[in-house]
């Protein structure tokens, strides 16, 4: 259905078309686009590495790439996906775009700092790409010493500097979110009337600000060890590689919550909209988000049950890990209860959101399995752990990211994407994902270690199945790239509220003007007022 693209009223996109206006913008909506484009590049870079790895792992002997290349591939996959796609994905794109809109503000608290945050991300990306071109690193994204500091001869220092700069960028984003939510809310918008998406970004920002510095100092210590030749974790001087693991995981476990909390916020928005029902247990959901963010700092030791940590500490960390799983359980039950007595429709965002809830449940429950010490001794560092965290990251986070992208695409671009293709892509991704990662649970139990370039022959069948699934998953990911770009040019015009959703962001025209609101709205009720039929004059 090709429609002649009529000229839109003045908005943040068609205000100025020059490249200079994009590179020096301080409009949070344009910065969101800058991030969207750059993280998509890294998503497909990491995805390409994953594709070659799956090709290699389809057969037992190492016949596609040398083990040296394979080690650099899985390191690139880890680094590119964790720091250059997952950590910034929802906060920096949807968060940047929607936070001011959802709380009725004209922009972030520090717009110039927001742009600086993207430039730091871009510089970090350049470092990462130079690292890849100069030969890459073969230490894995975890950089365990003493391999990374004394033995690896890849571009460790380049990678470390890139990650530190990317970390600094995420600290600035987090800082911006915290101050914006505290100081820039519209009149009448109390904390308990904030949409759950904003709660999720706030909780994520707290983790970003408090956890990332520890990663920066830990990786800096490795860089110092390599450049200055001093030894901080060098066992010959009495240094303790387990201390590196403590400091690294002190960041890296809260980091996985940085990655999943925004997804939870997006899913709460989508499920309430397409079930036409207010969220079940708003206070519980908001409390659960904060609880996950805070308790998430106490549990990192469950990555080190077999690493040489004392038995007592392992038991303490295991207990805390079980406690942090409870709020996630609350959230999943509340999402299911939201559907109760709703009137549910299945547009693309809803398919992604339901996919998220299902796969996140499996990921979370296997997380509980891995948190129990005796079982973890067997499955640690095997494909069981790989499957667990991919269920959370890919099954949870990426599904929520795609769901949010589709849900707010009309608001960001003023165009509607072809929903039929959207649903096909969502289902393909769901099937491809399960085919790829469910066999890996079995592989993990059978004892196939992670980061193996070649493996014994009896794991070949399941690995071949997993590689087949990966090809379907890859196809699934290419579909949205195609039809979303198509919709930019030929998509029909989407009105200000195509889904008839509630929320301040839907009261602005789409795409919204640069100053967001002509008149700052006044909020009078709790969010998700879907039960009450919306009158046009009703602001939210």
């Amino acid at each position, binding site marked *: 259905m090709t429609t002649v693209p009529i000229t839109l009223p003045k908005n943040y996109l068609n205000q100025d078309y020059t490249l200079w206006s994009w590179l020096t913008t301080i409009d949070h909506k344009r910065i969101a686009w800058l991030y969207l484009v750059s993280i998509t590049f890294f998503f497909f870079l990491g995805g390409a590495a994953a594709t070659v790895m799956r090709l290699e792992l389809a057969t037992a002997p190492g016949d596609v790439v040398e083990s040296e290349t394979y080690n650099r591939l899985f390191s690139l996959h880890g680094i590119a996906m964790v720091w250059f796609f997952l950590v910034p994905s929802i906060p920096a794109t949807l968060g940047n775009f929607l936070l001011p809109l959802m709380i009725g503000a004209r922009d972030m608290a520090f717009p110039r700092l927001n742009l600086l945050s993207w430039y730091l991300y871009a510089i970090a990306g350049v470092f990462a790409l130079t690292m890849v071109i100069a030969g890459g690193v073969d230490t894995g994204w975890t950089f365990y010493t003493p391999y990374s500091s004394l033995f690896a001869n890849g571009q460790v220092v380049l990678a470390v500097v890139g990650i530190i700069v990317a970390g600094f960028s995420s600290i600035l984003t987090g800082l911006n979110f915290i101050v914006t939510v505290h100081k820039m809310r519209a009149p009448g918008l109390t904390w308990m009337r904030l949409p759950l998406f904003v709660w999720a970004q706030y909780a994520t920002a707290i983790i970003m600000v408090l956890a990332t510095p520890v990663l920066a100092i830990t990786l800096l210590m490795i860089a110092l060890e390599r450049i200055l030749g001093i030894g901080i974790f060098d066992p010959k001087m009495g240094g303790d590689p387990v201390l590196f693991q403590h400091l690294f995981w002190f960041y890296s476990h809260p980091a996985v919550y940085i990655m999943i909390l925004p997804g939870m916020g997006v899913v709460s928005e989508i499920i309430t909209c397409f079930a036409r029902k207010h969220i079940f247990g708003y206070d519980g959901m908001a409390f659960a988000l904060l609880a996950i963010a805070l308790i998430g700092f106490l549990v990192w030791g469950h990555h080190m049950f077999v690493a040489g940590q*004392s038995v007592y500490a392992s038991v303490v960390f295991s207990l805390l890990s079980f406690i942090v799983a409870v709020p996630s359980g609350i959230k999943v039950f509340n999402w299911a209860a939201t559907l109760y007595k709703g009137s549910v429709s299945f547009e693309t965002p809803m398919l992604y959101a339901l996919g998220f809830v299902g796969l996140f449940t499996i990921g979370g429950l296997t997380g509980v399995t891995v948190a129990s010490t005796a079982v973890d001794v067997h499955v640690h560092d095997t494909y069981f752990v790989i499957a667990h965290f991919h269920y959370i990251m890919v099954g949870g986070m990426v599904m929520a990211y795609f769901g949010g992208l589709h849900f707010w695409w009309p608001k960001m671009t003023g165009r509607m994407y072809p929903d039929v293709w959207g649903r096909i892509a969502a289902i393909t991704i769901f099937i491809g994902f399960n085919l790829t990662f469910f066999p890996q649970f079995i592989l993990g139990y059978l004892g196939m270690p992670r980061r193996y370039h070649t493996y014994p022959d009896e794991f070949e069948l399941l690995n071949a199945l997993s590689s087949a699934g990966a090809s379907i998953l890859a196809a699934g990911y290419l579909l949205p790239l195609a039809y979303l770009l198509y919709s930019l040019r030929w998509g029909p015009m989407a009105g200000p509220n195509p889904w008839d959703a509630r929320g301040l962001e839907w009261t602005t025209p789409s795409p919204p003007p640069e100053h967001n609101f002509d008149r700052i709205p006044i909020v009078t009720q709790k969010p998700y007022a879907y039960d009450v039929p919306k009158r046009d004059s009703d602001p939210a």
Partner: protein
Amino acid sequence: MAEPTLRHHLGIWLTLLALLGLSIASAFLELGEAKAFVTLSIAVIQAFLIVTFFMYMRKAAPVPRIAAASGFIWLLIMMGLILTDYRTRPEDMMLGRLLPEPAWESPPQGAVPTPLAKNRDYGNPAAIQPTPDSERGEGAPSKPDTSAGERVYRSVCIACHGQGLMGAPRAGDQAAWEARSKAGMETLVSHAVNGYQAMPPKGGHPELSEQDIRGAIGHMLSASGISIPVRGDRQD
């Protein structure tokens, strides 16, 4: 609330300096284990003074106060849980007890001895990559190590030439090697092979080939910043 006056700030400043003096004085007392506690608690008091008065936390809003406090609280969380691990480790895993070097397997006959301690003298770690010693059967492509000469030097010649024992010219000592290099590479190699003054033949390692010795000499020369023209064909 009267603006804190100049006199007020000077008062805080003098207290800080007094606390500094106290802290240094306590270092000279014989407090033993308690010293760390005393000096650190003085530091905490100083920090508290700076934060409340110089950084205006005394009359700040609750939210900045929480932000400031969260920095310290998270630090305590990290320290608390990490020290729980180190405090509850059994005796054999205690960090303090350094274990003897793990058992080096003796290099089998004829193979170039594997580097005993990869970076014993903490040279640039990235330069030296351990090559798997030869008895690993599978013939996987061993990584090209940087220079065979350097590996021989590290495993054999370092015993004397590392510190310059028994009059041996220390690797890196330009003057000593300058004089010796005048005689030309061949004399150096022959001295090394059949022994010279206190140096036993082939440095006490008869299984070394002349090739290895030439490489080791080349390494020691380059480490001392000397490169001498090598006549003839036998270039290592």
